[in-house]
């Protein structure tokens, strides 16, 4: 029982990370039907910016988090403008291949500058190293921070998407881009904003992971990126609640597998989930059966 509770707490922390990354995948997919494979690398860049701020500039956690989010926001917008926007009228596969190209570009550009070695965030402020024993379940301050920051960001995102003008524009563009144009909505700006939001969340996830695992490297975005993608597909790609559900589900599945079985099998189980979802419910748990627009 304690073991189960412990693994669920761990799963909640890991799931928060996946959920943050999955949100970016799902929002971008919702608006331009692109699986942005460079998204995991934006998360990696976020982790490095956080590292640079905390280790070299000696900034605090919150400042570093905010700076990493800001840098990733700009990066996301630049990627969209430079790599994807010129392909707006191209085939989907062309954009997808471009996304993979951007992904490799980010990974190896980073490697060129910082080397392939794993870096550590170093010694964290003492308050972040605390942990609490709640009825035999160990909860670390890092986990509390990860879950707290993630939930806060999700609430802010939900507010932006539901209540603000630009959020309504995002939803309008994702439901019917031409009709949105007829309302005077600038589709290009709305797409940029979507990339900005998603990338900011990925940047935050990068810093949180850096703090949590205390190890970052230029290829760290590959696997979490794929898993967050699976999380988005699991919940129903294009759906924000689906990304949250999928993120937490994949996080919990991973920690339970490594807790009860072996951490060697976590990847296999997660990719197994993808296969099962694609076979039995390709639109995801929350997705309706798609009616192709005529």
């Amino acid at each position, binding site marked *: 029982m304690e073991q189960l509770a412990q693994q669920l707490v761990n799963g909640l922390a890991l799931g928060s990370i996946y959920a943050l990354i999955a949100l970016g995948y799902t929002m971008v997919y919702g608006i331009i039907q692109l699986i942005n494979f460079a998204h995991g690398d934006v998360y990696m860049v976020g982790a490095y910016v956080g590292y640079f701020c905390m280790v070299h500039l000696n900034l605090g956690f919150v400042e570093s988090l905010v700076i990493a989010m800001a840098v990733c926001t700009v990066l996301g917008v630049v990627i969209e403008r430079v790599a994807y926007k010129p392909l707006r009228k191209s085939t989907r596969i062309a954009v997808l291949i471009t996304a993979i190209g951007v992904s490799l570009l980010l990974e190896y550009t980073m490697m060129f500058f910082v080397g392939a070695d794993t870096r550590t965030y170093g010694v964290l402020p003492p308050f972040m190293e605390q942990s609490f024993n709640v009825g035999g379940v160990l909860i670390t301050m890092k986990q509390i921070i990860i879950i707290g920051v993630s939930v806060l960001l999700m609430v802010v995102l939900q507010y932006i998407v539901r209540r603000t003008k630009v959020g309504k*524009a995002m*939803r309008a563009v994702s439901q019917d881009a031409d009709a949105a144009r007829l309302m005077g909505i600038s589709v290009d700006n709305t797409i940029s904003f979507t990339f900005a939001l998603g990338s900011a969340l990925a940047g935050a996830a990068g810093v949180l992971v850096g703090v949590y695992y205390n190890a970052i490297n230029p290829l760290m975005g590959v696997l979490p990126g794929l898993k967050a993608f699976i999380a988005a597909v699991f919940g129903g790609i294009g759906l924000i609640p689906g990304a949250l559900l999928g993120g937490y589900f994949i996080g919990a599945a991973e920690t339970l597998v490594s807790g009860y079985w072996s951490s060697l099998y976590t990847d296999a189980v997660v990719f197994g989930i993808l296969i099962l979802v694609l076979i039995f419910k390709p639109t995801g748990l929350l997705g309706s059966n798609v009616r192709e627009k005529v």
Partner: protein
Amino acid sequence: MLEIKDLEVGFGGITALKGISLSVAEGEIVTLIGANGAGKTTTLRTVSGLVRPRAGKILVDGQDVTRLSAQARVKRGLVQVPEGRRVFPQMSVLENLELGAYLRKDAKSVASDLDDVFARFPRLADRRKQHAGTLSGGEQQMLAIGRALMSRPQILLLDEPSMGLAPLLVQEIFSIVSEINAGGTTVLLVEQNANMALQIAHRGYVLETGKIVLAGTAAELTSTDEVKRAYLGG
């Protein structure tokens, strides 16, 4: 108020509009009638800036808007109710209407326009929290028109508002269009239902495979043999 000059539009190898010209004066309802595939929707899409013409000009109040973005044209008061309504299905009625006022910054007059729309379409008021996708066809058409009104159009472009609606509803929609026009909004109405369109329009144009083949007052067109035979079922 709206002038289209020698407009030519093509997609790939197909020429959809082969140089059409028409004009709509302030306060008029002008209808563009024609069969399926004649180029009616293409005309409106080009006027709204969703499609770029190969040649020709679109003028609003004498000013060339041919190169302007769709957004800039909405700002100029050129507002379209698209074919098939195109409401945002997973957003509430209220949100759809708010999006109509997307470019407006005057919150007070937006709120009063919203009241006006709900007064004009009481059925939308009852369903303001409901997703637009769950509305009936007629309600969706009302929502699409209400949404367009929220952006305070100078010229309202309507694309087949009668499509897929029961005759009684078509009557209702057309009398609403007349009312809107009586309130000072200029209307360009694209219709397959020539009979209804010519009843409320002042003037009309007949479009056939990308060309305007006839033009005249509504009365003239209604009495033309060609129009009677091809579009009025008699």
